[in-house]
């Protein structure tokens, strides 16, 4: 196929050619970045939590406050919950993954350090590791003699009495790797509020309740503190049991004390769903915009293509009369579209890169991976070819006799 005659024709129809190029370039730039953001959000939504989500339930009752018997009330609740058929483990906890509100603290490796090494979240609760279904990769779970009551710890910290504080902690593998790269974490010490804690166990993964920095998402610690704040996690024996167990648990809790306010009651699958609500909405919106953009671009190419064919009917007739076959004409318009699309894609790639740089500065997005460029190019080439097919076939159908009319 000869490209030179096409180029010289395009040079005489600068505006139309320019419009097609601009449209393809803008679409290319925006779709590349939009798809990239969609992928980022989808990645986030499938983030591993480390807990056995499909078998877990979360119930949060309004804090009953500083009553003397809250410890015994919690024990009653836990015993009642454990009796429900289908329940595997229960725990009274301080916070849960996807819970959105979190207690965090700075961690030091040396008490003399001025600034914290990193900021990690604090999980606690008796029987938490089995209730969350966490996977221990090193060391042991927290033992009963590690545990202290939460109130005791608070009083101890206020009185600067190190004895009443816990001295053991379980951390996540990611946190261990960040603190002591390449070394075993077991037996090492971290300092929290200048008190030393010995790492006795490492779990594979446990994400924080609220994630504002994805790179620090799994910096979590588990402290041996008994909680009595009316926040319970139940792990069922099978995923099918969940709804029934949740209903039974609520009835039980109401029976024990009908005056309590239930703040939250949900499965962990629902919690994950709610937690990534924003990401899902954004991804959905961007997918809609991308589809709309591609359709608008395709329609634009159809419109301009038809115009072009209509304008050049006589030229086509002359070429047919001089011996060009239908497929020659078809190829001509297809090649022309391919050329325009290629220039558009080239310009669009540069723009896509520029937009990505802007997003990197303003939205802390990572750099656009190289794979987006060839994939985007192929997609736009295909769309261009599909869009131009109709007008090109109409052009190929122009009979040679047109050339003899009204010359």
């Amino acid at each position, binding site marked *: 196929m000869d490209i030179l005659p096409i180029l010289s024709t395009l040079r005489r129809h600068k505006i139309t050619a320019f419009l097609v190029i601009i449209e393809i370039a803008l679409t290319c730039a925006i779709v590349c970045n939009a798809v990239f*953001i969609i992928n980022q959000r989808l990645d986030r939504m499938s983030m591993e939590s480390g807990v056995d989500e499909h078998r877990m339930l979360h119930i949060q009752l309004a804090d009953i406050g500083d009553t003397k018997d809250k410890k015994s009330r919690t024990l009653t609740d836990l015993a009642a919950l454990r009796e429900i058929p289908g329940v595997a483990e229960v725990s009274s906890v301080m916070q849960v993954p996807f819970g959105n509100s979190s207690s965090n603290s700075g961690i030091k490796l040396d008490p003399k350090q001025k600034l914290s090494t990193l900021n990690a979240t604090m999980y606690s609760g008796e029987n938490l590791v089995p209730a969350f279904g966490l996977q221990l990769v090193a060391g042991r779970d927290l033992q009963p003699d590690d545990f202290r009551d939460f109130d005791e710890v608070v009083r101890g910290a206020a009185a600067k009495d190190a004895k009443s504080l816990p001295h053991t902690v379980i951390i996540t593998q990611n946190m261990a790797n960040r603190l002591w790269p390449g070394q075993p974490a077991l037996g090492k010490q971290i300092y929290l509020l200048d008190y030393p804690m010995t790492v006795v166990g490492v779990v594979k993964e446990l994400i924080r309740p609220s994630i504002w920095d994805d790179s620090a998402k799994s910096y979590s610690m588990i402290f041996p503190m008994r909680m009595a704040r009316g926040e319970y996690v139940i792990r069922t024996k099978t995923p099918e049991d969940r709804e029934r167990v949740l209903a039974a648990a609520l009835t039980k809790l109401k029976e024990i004390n009908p005056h309590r306010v239930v703040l939250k009651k949900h499965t962990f699958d629902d919690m994950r769903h709610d937690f990534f609500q924003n990401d899902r909405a954004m991804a959905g919106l961007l997918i809609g915009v991308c589809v709309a953009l591609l359709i608008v671009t395709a329609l634009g190419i159809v419109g301009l293509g038809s115009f072009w064919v209509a304008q050049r009917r006589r030229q086509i007739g002359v070429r047919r009369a001089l011996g060009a076959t239908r497929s020659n004409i078809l190829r001509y318009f297809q090649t022309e579209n391919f050329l325009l699309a290629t220039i558009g894609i080239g310009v669009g790639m540069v723009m896509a890169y520029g937009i990505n740089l802007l997003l990197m500065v303003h939205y802390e997005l990572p750099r656009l991976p190289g794979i987006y460029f060839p994939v985007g190019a192929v997609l736009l080439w295909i769309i261009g070819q599909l869009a131009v097919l109709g007008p090109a076939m109409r052009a190929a159908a122009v009979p040679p006799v047109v050339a003899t009319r009204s010359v």
Partner: protein
Amino acid sequence: MFGYYLDLAFHSLRRNKVLTVLMVLAIAVGIGASMTTLTVVHLLAGDPLPGRSQAIFYPQVDADPKGKDANEPLDMLDYRSAVDLWSARRADRQALVVQSQVRLNTAEAGKPPVMTMMLSATTDFFSMFNVPFRYGGPWSAQDDAARARVVVITDDLNQKLFNGENSVGRTLRLRDSDVRIVGVLKPWRPSPQFYAVRGGRFAGGDTSDFYTKPEDVITPFFTGLEVNDGNFQQFTCWQMPDRPGHLQNAPCVWLALWVQINDATKVAAYRRYVADYAAQQQAAGRFTHSGNTRLRDLMGWLDYNGVLPSNVRLQAWLAVAFLGICLVNMVGLLLAKFLRRSGEIGLRRALGASRVAVFMQFMVESGLIGLIGGAFGWLLTLAGLWFIRQQPVAYADLARLDVPMFMLTFLAAISASLLAGMLPAVRACRVVPAWQLKTL
């Protein structure tokens, strides 16, 4: 002539329906998408206190012993600083503000208690922020001082509990205390909930929670501290508080102070007063540093916290870019449509129509397409805003089209299509009559 051009335009639009539909669709979709997102931006980024906001200020001192003069101070105040600055009464109005979660019981038996958010503020809160009352009014400064068991409730709660009747004088139970209703608000929905904005710089752009509704119950500041003692949340602490939730003497920041300074010339004096207060506290050994006090005005504080959610901003940019592509598309289609009628143009020109007349004719046609596109774009905007209202975001209920944005929809549609029609119309009026007539 305009009527005639309009007639011609209608005729032309009817002649090639596919092309017309494509163009109207391009404008409508572009306008629909961009007006939906721009309406959200307009509603979220506006001034929550028009006419008043430049006189409202948010003083900050830095009680954090680990803070530095070079850093920004903490977003909120510790109890001592807040109460000191408030009780000095150096501004025209000043209000301490704190929120907490509280258990609310109604007088009717049988209804289970609910957890709700409680706002506790000193009485200037109402006059300073132009809070509208339906029944009753704010409590007095004496009530503040006497820790009176009184409460102001929102219209929402009044509808829910008392079917919208005048409930002044009736009693609510907040945790374990009975409080008497002294005022019921008219519907009041500041956007954002500006008096509770803080910590935006730690939100990573996810600031949609700044747009939640005002709290259902409002108590005098010190009454609230007593009634709900132990249930207050710190913004942050630099040391473990002795008793979590009891923050009066804790090494924590958890209070907001808002002041109103009507006279712009007095702002500098107040700024100096805040700085002097911090210096004095440093001299007394309570602060470690005093060089980073701040006195931002309301809009400055909202800007500093980046209240507009970054998702919303990203969506607005995307929608405007989308409109741009739709316009480029429309330029192409109009070009095709106009130049296809070169013969007609040649004839008109040969019969004496000037270039300007031809240009005007095509601009009228573009404008008509814009008007029709604008009408569909308006429907799409309504649909888009409906969709946003179904989303689980705090600002969902705000997403409605107001009159200025309604006008803007049509204005934008028509000006966009006129802009798009410019180039094709110029090309059309440059058609050489003789060439066209030859081929007729």
